[in-house]
């Protein structure tokens, strides 16, 4: 973890509401793991003093380039869209605990909306380790579906479900997931982006004895474990515990998460 400047290689929209930023992070001297995040100064620190947490969407160790996929939401991400090639971004990271890959078996990733930004890096790593990866992408509309082609390109099998096509109900996703669990040797399941899907994955992991992990979100101030802004409750050994998403997470075993 360090504070460093990174130069923008590219920053452009990938759909109506989502942008992608590519950074030259040669200043980084630590490995970056899927599920970890960076705490980013978006622009005008006077009006908007707080940094914004963004997951590693893609990290290339060789070229030391880092990519974020971000939803343009409020003032911070709006300011990010104003940044141009060669501008400098100030980052803290890599932060938090990332995903752990299963020793064996295939992975099932279930992402809703921008949740795919977080799971994408995991898909890449699993494919690099030659594991089978199945990804269910859920979104409001087909136009909101992100990175379908890229995931297919790296050899993941992608299933898309959307609200407008009425294919994204928890019931349908459960049916699809159970089919994959039965047929594809899924040993672990990962999710990010929707509370309803979190619950589903928790149930699936429990019912089918799968390793399961969830990437959580919380409003953050420090991002490094000092301020307790990002508290969430987990259950460990049947005891409720308040932990920090930024340092104890953002990835938690799905069995520990209180939904």
């Amino acid at each position: 973890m360090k504070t460093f400047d990174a130069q923008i290689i590219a920053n452009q929209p990938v759909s109506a509401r989502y942008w992608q930023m590519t950074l030259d992070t040669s200043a980084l001297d630590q490995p970056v793991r899927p599920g970890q995040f960076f705490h980013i100064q978006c622009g005008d620190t006077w009006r908007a003093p707080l940094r914004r947490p963004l997951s590693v969407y893609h990290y290339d160790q060789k070229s030391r380039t880092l990519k974020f996929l971000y939803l343009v939401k409020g003032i911070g991400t709006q300011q990010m869209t104003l940044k141009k090639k060669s501008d400098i971004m100030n980052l803290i990271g890599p932060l938090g605990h990332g995903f752990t890959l299963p020793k064996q078996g295939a992975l099932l990733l279930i992402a809703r909306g921008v949740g795919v930004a977080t799971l994408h890096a995991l898909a890449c790593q699993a494919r690099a380790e030659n594991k089978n990866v199945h990804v269910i992408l859920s979104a409001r509309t087909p136009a909101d579906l992100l990175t379908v082609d890229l995931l297919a390109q790296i050899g993941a099998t992608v299933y898309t479900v959307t609200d407008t096509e009425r294919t994204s109900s928890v019931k349908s996703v459960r049916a699809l997931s159970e089919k994959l669990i039965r047929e594809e040797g899924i040993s672990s399941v990962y999710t990010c982006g929707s509370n309803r899907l979190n619950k589903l994955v928790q149930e699936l992991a429990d019912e089918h004895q799968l390793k399961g992990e969830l990437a959580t979100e919380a409003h953050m101030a420090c991002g490094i474990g000092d301020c307790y802004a990002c508290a969430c409750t987990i259950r460990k050994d049947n005891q409720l515990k308040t932990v920090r998403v930024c340092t104890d997470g953002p990835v938690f075993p799905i069995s520990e998460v209180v939904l």
Partner: protein
Amino acid sequence: MTDLSVNIGSLTLQNPVMPASGTFGPELAPLLDINRLGALVPKSVTLSARDGNQTPRICETDGGMINSIGIQSKGVEHYMANILPSYHDFDPPLIASISGETIDEFEQLAARLDKHPDVAALELNISCPNLRDNGQAFGMSAESTFNLLRQVRAATGKPLIAKLTPNVTRIQDIARAAEQGGADALTVANTFLAMAIDTETRKPRIGNIMGGLSGAAVKPLIVRLIFQAHQATNLPIIGSGGIMNGQDAIEMILAGATSVQIGTATFVQPNAMNTITDEITDYLTRHHIDAVTDLIGQVDLR
């Protein structure tokens, strides 16, 4: 050579820059030279364990932020067993911030920490807006401030720093009450009780409805409070609220502060306290001032 050292009661600090409680921890070590701080101030500790408030616990406002962390603490025993040791290898003196729901709790906390060799002083958080209903705090009444200080004073020989609340009609009265009760110094001040509503969801943007405002937005109010408290008492004052750079720190020192605490600025840039210390040195050099203490309260009123 510019002399940055200042005294807070019997405590000598190598420079006036220290963290504000709740915004600092040993986790900062890779990002900040902790040994260059004037003092260390960990998060406020309570007598027994507390879980803190509902989430969201923070939100951003124009030029500031609201927090309602609500003192998440594992209690004073855990503090002595785990928190204090995590600072043991750093050089600057440690100021323990303590927070209680009753005067007796403050007293017990002080008594419990009184003999601890790693605790150089106690900061009494009599001003947290996030503990009781509607932001009530001991520091809102001169009488309870006086009583609290007197009782804690009897329990410990360590320097006592009363952290005042800005949410009062006359800070002068509270400052004097703290002085008479036996405080060695004042921190001016804690956060301002504040609220923000998301107009789309119509929900409060803080789980606890209200919280404490900090950051650049509050600086002009804090400068005024420091000026008033400095006129009302002889106690050294630690200015806190909205300091973003060295110039802000100098402004508070001119208003009457001896030392300053930095909170929100650390979230903006984790090494802010080091930068601010450098900027104070630069200012003194540029103005040919030998010692930072020469500036305390030196606002020129003509």
